[in-house]
């Protein structure tokens, strides 16, 4: 049995040696390895992590009922945190608009810039408390995605504006 296997492998090894070269094999192997290395770069769908990794949590400093709170750098409206909600949530009885305007604010506590979504809360008349207008990065209405001068109660059951929240979306890319 062993001698049969020895003969078989010797024959096949000689066959390979006669019909190929070490350099040729190295070349083919290199091509194959390069292909394997490139596979992770393919533009595959990444639908299982929409929006990328979870945004880094900012260090907090200051009160979200103060107009000078860091997240409010571009806000124009009544602070939801003074109206029964918070910087992240709407007061009871109102609906958060899914359509928002988005800017960036610098957080002095950790020195990073964050992407902030200014979501209006809608469905009740104006809150009237803690009016705050800072407008960093605000643009005229001819750039509608970058203006805070319009009512952002869009896509909600009611277009009546109540107050504004400031939700951290992620860390700004350092360009």
């Amino acid at each position, binding site marked *: 049995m062993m001698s049969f296997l020895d003969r078989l492998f010797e024959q096949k090894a000689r066959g390979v040696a006669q019909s*190929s070269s070490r350099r040729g094999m190295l070349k083919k*192997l290199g*091509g194959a390895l390069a292909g394997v290395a490139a596979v992770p770069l393919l533009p595959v769908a990444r639908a299982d992590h929409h929006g*990328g990794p979870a945004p880094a949590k900012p260090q907090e400093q200051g009160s979200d009922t103060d107009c000078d709170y860091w997240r409010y750098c571009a806000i124009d409206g009544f602070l939801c945190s003074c109206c029964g909600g918070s910087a992240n949530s709407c007061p009871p009885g109102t609906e958060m608009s899914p359509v928002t305007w988005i800017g960036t604010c610098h957080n002095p506590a950790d020195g990073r810039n964050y992407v902030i979504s200014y979501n209006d809360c809608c469905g009740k008349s104006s809150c009237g408390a803690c009016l705050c207008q800072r407008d960093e990065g605000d643009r005229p209405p001819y750039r509608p995605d970058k203006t805070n001068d319009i009512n952002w109660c869009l*896509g909600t059951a009611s277009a009546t504006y109540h107050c504004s929240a400031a939700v951290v979306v992620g860390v700004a890319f350092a360009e």
Partner: protein
Amino acid sequence: MITLALRQCAIALLSLSVVPLALSASAAEVNEARALYHYQMFCQGCHTPDGSGNGDIPALKDFMGHFMNTDQGRAFLVRVPGSATSKLDDQELAEVLNWCLAEFAGVSLPVQGYAPYSAAEVSVLRAEPLEEIEQHRAAVLLDIVKQRQQPAL
């Protein structure tokens, strides 16, 4: 026999290695963090974080890939005002569009694959922003549906 098998195996491996290299040339240009940031800053406010849209705002999710079936469709995604008139430069716009396609288009992408946008293609297309957007969109989608209904030659 083993020699033949080795040869076939080597050819198969080589073939596999060529395709990914060709496709990855453009894919490698997508900086994920930058593309995500640009999506957040210039698209997400209306199209929502997961691209599902809202009400009158069209969904990107599981839909935008349909536009990659025709030249007019490819052009549409660049010529809509949100793309064409954004402050992103051509390279950045191509990058965020390619990122959106990979991230959101899902089952709507053509089964035969598609070529990612290049900055040069985007530069030409965005020079003519659309005005009658809804009508144009409907016409583009109708053409895509008609094309699919044609029997294969």
